[in-house]
């Protein structure tokens, strides 16, 4: 967060300490890369931080491993003020594990020049149009149209209303699932999907780099990323336009990414009420709004989220500003799409991604690949249950 947000946090801490004599708050900022390791080592050494910044998948794993404390009691009457969807994302096994801080939602940025060359009249309104446009872009300009994060294929399936797991069994080899993957495979074959890093664990850097290099027609990205395009590739930025991200049939917007503050498990229990109080302050409307404005993200508090800052577009806005309001449209529908509550989920996910990769790249028949993965999942899920 440093150094951009140093004033923000320092003011916040100062105000809180002024209003709450006897309380000392220390804000320490670490690079994102090492936070997980640092948290774990601190917990093991018995000196955990009172509050730690996490995202949903990490929170899920930590909560399941028993490393986080539920905060239902601490949320208290502030609870209804948070956006319902954010609290839902943080609830595992009936308990909530964090104070929502901010969220991100994707908008779709597209290269107007490529669109014109491919004869595409408007931004895509759903996944089918995305894929169709991608194929057209490939056919007429030879460039790739889209780079969906297929390593998170589970999220994509869920967004399209296709469950990955039902009643403890893997169900992603239904005809509907197969059809979805087949559509992706076709688009891939026609060159519509960016080949490199398509299935990488995090293909966003590759996607945004390709977009910045003028090699990609459409990019699903949060407004913060659109700002980066502005600074790194002015020529592409000039011909970029944005639209709200296409909602799936579930009405869920893509790219939901919630960040929150969690409480580690072995924090001194006596401190909990004080921690709760500070956490509520930290994530109250005013502070969330201030942060979100500065960071180009979205607050997770209902009142703050409806602030006109996010909904009005200033005149003469560039893509980055438009992105903010485009995203605001999708915010209420944003969810961090993640299959929660399963042990060793990551390993299972990798099997699924492998199967999808085989199917999409044409190495294996889609149905066969998915069937194989389903078999592996069910075997492992059964083994988990018997433990």
């Amino acid at each position, binding site marked *: 967060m440093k150094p951009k947000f140093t004033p923000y946090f320092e003011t916040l801490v100062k105000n809180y300490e002024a209003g709450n004599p006897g309380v000392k708050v220390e804000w320490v900022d670490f690079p994102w890369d090492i936070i*997980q*390791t640092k948290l*774990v080592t601190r*917990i*093991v050494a018995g000196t955990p931080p009172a509050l730690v910044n996490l995202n949903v998948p990490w929170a899920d*794993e930590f909560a399941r*491993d*028993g*490393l986080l404390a539920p905060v239902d009691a601490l949320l208290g009457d502030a609870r209804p003020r948070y956006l319902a969807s954010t609290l839902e994302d943080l609830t595992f096994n009936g308990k909530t594990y964090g104070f929502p801080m901010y969220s991100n939602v994707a908008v779709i940025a597209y290269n107007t020049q490529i669109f014109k060359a491919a004869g595409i009249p408007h931004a895509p309104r759903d996944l089918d149009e995305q894929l169709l446009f991608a194929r057209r872009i490939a056919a007429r300009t030879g460039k790739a149209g889209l780079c969906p994060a297929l*390593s998170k294929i589970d999220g994509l399936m869920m967004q399209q209303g296709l469950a990955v797991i039902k009643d403890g069994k893997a169900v992603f080899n239904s005809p509907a699932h197969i059809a979805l993957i087949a559509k992706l495979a076709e688009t891939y074959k026609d060159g519509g999907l960016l*080949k*490199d*890093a*398509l*299935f*990488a*664990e*995090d293909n966003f850097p*590759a996607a945004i780099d390709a977009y910045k290099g003028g*090699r990609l027609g459409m990019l699903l990205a949060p407004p913060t990323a659109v700002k980066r395009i502005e600074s790194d590739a002015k020529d592409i930025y000039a011909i970029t336009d944005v639209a709200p991200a296409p909602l799936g049939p579930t009405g869920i917007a893509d790219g939901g990414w919630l960040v929150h503050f969690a409480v580690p*498990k*072995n924090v001194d229990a006596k401190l909990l009420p004080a921690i709760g109080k500070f956490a509520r302050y930290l994530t109250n409307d005013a502070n969330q709004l201030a942060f979100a404005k500065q960071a180009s993200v979205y607050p997770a508090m209902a009142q703050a989220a409806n602030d006109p800052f996010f909904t009005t577009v200033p005149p003469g806005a560039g893509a980055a500003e438009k992105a903010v309001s485009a995203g605001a449209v999708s915010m209420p529908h944003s969810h961090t799409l993640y299959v929660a509550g399963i042990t*060793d989920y*990551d*390993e299972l996910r*990798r*099997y699924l*991604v*492998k199967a999808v*990769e*085989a199917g999409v790249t044409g*190495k294996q028949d889609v149905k066969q690949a998915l069937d194989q993965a389903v078999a592996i999942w069910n075997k492992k899920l059964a083994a988990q249950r018997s433990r």
Partner: protein
Amino acid sequence: MLNPMRSLTAWLFLAPALALLAVFSFWPVAFGSLLAFTDYSLIRETHWVGLDNFRYIFDNEMFTTGLKNSLLFLLMVPFVQIGALSLAVLVNNQLPGIRYFRAAFYVPVVTTVSVVGIMWGFMFHEQGALNYVLMTMRLVGAPVGWLSNDNLALFAIMFVTLWRGLGWYMVMYLAALQAVPTDMQEAAILDGANRWQRFWKITVPMLRPTIMICSVLSVLAALKAYQEVDVLTQGGPMNSTFTGLYYAYDQGLKHLKLPRALAASFVMSIFCIGIALLCLRYIKPKHR
């Protein structure tokens, strides 16, 4: 000649180093190996689970592929060693500006691994520099998916590991070459030996201990490779670039499943020990 005074002195010299090794190398490995047989999870109670973790990882395609790949990495060793030795020979002279070349060859060693990942990722891109060069030179007809083709990705990664390692071993061979006494070389020239003969009959035998050490180190490094996987492919495409230790690293540092990570580490250790013993058996170093 053994005398007690000598022994005592020897132990005194060794003591500080051994103490540190005991605390920071042996202890974690011993304790860690023990933990591999438990379900240690940082906060909850720990129970003995015997071979459960090992059963789990051997049932897991990512680890078994990783094990196989780590063994495949051994193919790299001859290339790295011959390459590094050649580089050392090439720069073992006083040509003007030679130290800048030495530094240049050392750059891959000092480049931070994340940058290595970014750059080689860029090079290996379907529309990246390597394909560009190959296509311009008409060596290939269509872009090659170096990192997206599951048959090629592992070799691409091995190449990057080789690239990073050359400079490191070059420095060692350079120091060794420096130690080769010149009088033998001069005598040989007087005898009419040419460059090639001098190299093979004088230089290489004198380099033998260094070659031994470097080869063993190289073998162990190959078996323990994981950083390049982390920054380039994270195990993909299609789980084909996992290595044994990358699996341990991924499970241990990212998913905090320590007992499993330790079990994987343990298995890799066994392989390392086995192969190291094999090496030592075949190439017994000569003590003067």
